[in-house]
């Protein structure tokens, strides 16, 4: 065939080839745009739902630290609630009916009394004085301020009646209502009162759990990966082990929860709802992932490095620990971080071991009852109050922030240490 003729044939087919390439590129692009759109939709709906939770309404009230109430044997257990009620009655002297009074007291969060108690305990000199103090408003007031309660609805259909709204309006007119940064959301444990519920308890629970998971999964996973990849002889037994590790990585996480329930709680009788057990369960769950990524990282170290070390008389152990492992470490760390991120976002197995309980206290150790961030989200999402809806989204934002930070670290590690030979 002459060159000219060949060229002619090639030319003829060229248009079609380019067209196919173009269509393929277009399809790829639209797939990416499609998934991006979903991501944007998801993130923005979470953000729009949740960003207001980072601000919270407070009302200022003149409190008289009545010596008659406070000068008791134990100032910590004095009737601080009474002080608040007294002040509210003074601010709204026209309220007389018992039921209305009860509603009036409801303007301020029940947790406000703890705030007063802490103030008095910190500074006993307050007793006998009158002070204007910002107190946390009830979640209904907060919702009203954030326009989640529709004033145009008939009274019976909203959570606040006209009278209550008129009180709030009066307070607003007097400049006694403000919106401030919601520190409590980050420092409090869970609470039945949405306005004082925070994620600290769940975050600490997650942290203790991840610490246990990491402390166990990293050394054991990396050790197993090194042994299987570098030292174990390849035979039936190691083949079976390998297959089983791969299978284990695909086991649904709830199964690990059941395992934890049966083994750690029922057999070893470890405490229920404790980060210790949660950490153990998540360790079992992440271990296969870490072993697999660790082995991949080891495999990606070129054999020439091993040969170089062995060739000058390094023992196998020296070759692995001096040369192979340092090169595989970034990959192993990446795998570990991704495994940890998965563990952080896991909730199903924790439900099985009782970490779904309502726990107010912030855990201070690995055996204290605790929940975890995703479980806290699950619990709040289940609560009817409007204020919990925005807290759910806010907690999701916090969780996502952690996850993005962890995955970002993994990506950074991977790109920083990529290919050094």
């Amino acid at each position, binding site marked *: 065939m002459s060159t000219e003729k060949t060229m002619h044939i090639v030319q003829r087919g060229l248009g079609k080839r380019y067209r196919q390439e173009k269509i393929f590129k277009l399809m790829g692009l639209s797939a990416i745009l499609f998934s991006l759109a979903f991501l944007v939709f998801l993130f923005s709906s979470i953000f729009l739902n949740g960003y207001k939770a980072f601000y919270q309404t407070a009302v200022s009230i003149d409190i008289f630290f009545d010596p008659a109430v406070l000068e008791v044997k134990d100032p910590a257990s004095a009737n601080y609630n009474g002080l608040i009620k007294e002040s509210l009655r003074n601010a709204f002297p026209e309220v007389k009916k018992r039921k209305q009074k009860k509603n009036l007291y409801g303007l301020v969060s029940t947790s406000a009394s703890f705030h007063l108690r802490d103030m008095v305990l910190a500074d006993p000199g307050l007793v006998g004085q009158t002070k204007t103090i910002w107190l946390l408003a009830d979640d209904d007031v907060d919702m009203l301020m954030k326009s989640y309660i529709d004033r145009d609805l008939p009274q019976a259909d909203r959570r606040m009646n006209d009278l209550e709204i008129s009180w709030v309006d009066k307070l607003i007119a007097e400049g006694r209502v403000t919106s401030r940064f919601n520190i409590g959301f980050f420092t409090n444990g869970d609470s039945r009162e949405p306005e004082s519920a925070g994620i600290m308890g769940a975050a600490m629970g997650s942290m203790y759990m991840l610490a246990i998971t990491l402390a166990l999964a990293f050394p054991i996973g990396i050790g197993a990966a090194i042994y299987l990849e570098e030292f174990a*002889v*390849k035979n039936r037994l190691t083949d079976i082990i390998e297959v089983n590790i791969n299978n284990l990585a695909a086991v649904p996480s709830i199964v690990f929860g059941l395992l934890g329930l049966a083994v750690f709680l029922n057999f070893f009788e470890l405490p229920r709802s404790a980060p210790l057990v949660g950490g153990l369960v998540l360790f079992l769950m992440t271990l296969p992932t870490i072993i697999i990524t660790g082995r991949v990282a080891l495999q990606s170290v*070129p054999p*020439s*490095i*091993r*040969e*170089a*070390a*062995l*060739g*000058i*008389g*390094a*023992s196998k152990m*020296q070759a692995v620990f*001096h*040369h192979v492992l340092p*090169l595989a470490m970034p990959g192993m760390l990446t795998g570990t971080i991704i495994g940890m991120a998965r563990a952080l976002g896991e909730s199903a197995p924790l439900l099985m071991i009782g970490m779904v309980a309502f726990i107010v206290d912030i855990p201070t150790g690995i055996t204290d009852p605790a929940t975890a961030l995703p479980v806290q989200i699950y619990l709040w999402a289940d609560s009817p109050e409007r204020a919990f809806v925005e807290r759910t989204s806010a907690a999701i934002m916090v969780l996502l922030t952690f996850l993005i930070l962890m995955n970002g670290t993994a990506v950074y590690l991977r790109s920083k240490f990529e290919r*050094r*030979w």
Partner: protein
Amino acid sequence: MLQTLSSTTPPVIESGNQTKTRARVSRDDRNTAGHPFVDKPRMSCRDVNVYYGDKKAINSVSIDIAENEVLAMIGPSGCGKSTFLRCLNRMNDTIAICRVDGTIKLDDQDIYDKKIDVVPLRAQVGMVFQKPNPFPKSIYENVAYGPRIHGLADAKTELDAIVERSLIKAGLWDEVKDRLDQPGTGLSGGQQQRLCIARAIAVGPEVILMDEPCSALDPIATATIEELISELKLQYTIVIVTHNMQQAARVSQRTAYFHLGDLLEVGQTDKLFTRPSHQLTEDYITGRFG
């Protein structure tokens, strides 16, 4: 140095030694022609067979390696040169399915003896690989690593001296003395290969095995390495695998020709290239196949 028949010669070899005058050994003959044995061998191999699983890769090879000589191993691709070379310092141990039998002696010590520890053996019989494979560490660390793990230097100054001496011997000192702390992987290909040679020298080996050390290098870097080999042979025994017959002719004293797992001919390099005894050797060096 060469001897027609050594006392240890197994009977199978004899047929090879009867062909001193250019009488052709036929293509079907699988015995070793020429002079595989020497008087005072540094290493001696007898009836070495190597298997990869069920597959036999080396078939009853017997050869001596003399003191301070360069022995070149040539042969078509896949004939087992690397496999045989890697037997000499037991690098084949790292391949799970690889099995070696026969005897290989280094200074009368059987290196496949159960009591022999491969770690000191590999310090004695060093290896340079086809592709330069410096550690992704500094130039200094590359050379110092071997002496350090073997505990050859007590003090830092001693180690410095070993590093300097090795780099000088490898002909690399002048090029790198100002940047010893820079990564070895940042050197050019030829420099990297000389760094690998320096690394092998640093542990004080007696034999250096080189598997196609120049195949990844350009002609100028190749020439440098060849010069280096000529100098190194004054101190070391060198076994080099090469595909380049000019290279074998330039650097080696003796050449061994492998063919499909058999060692077909061993002889003085100039003689083997000008007057090969085995028909297949002639076919190979005249470029009829390979």
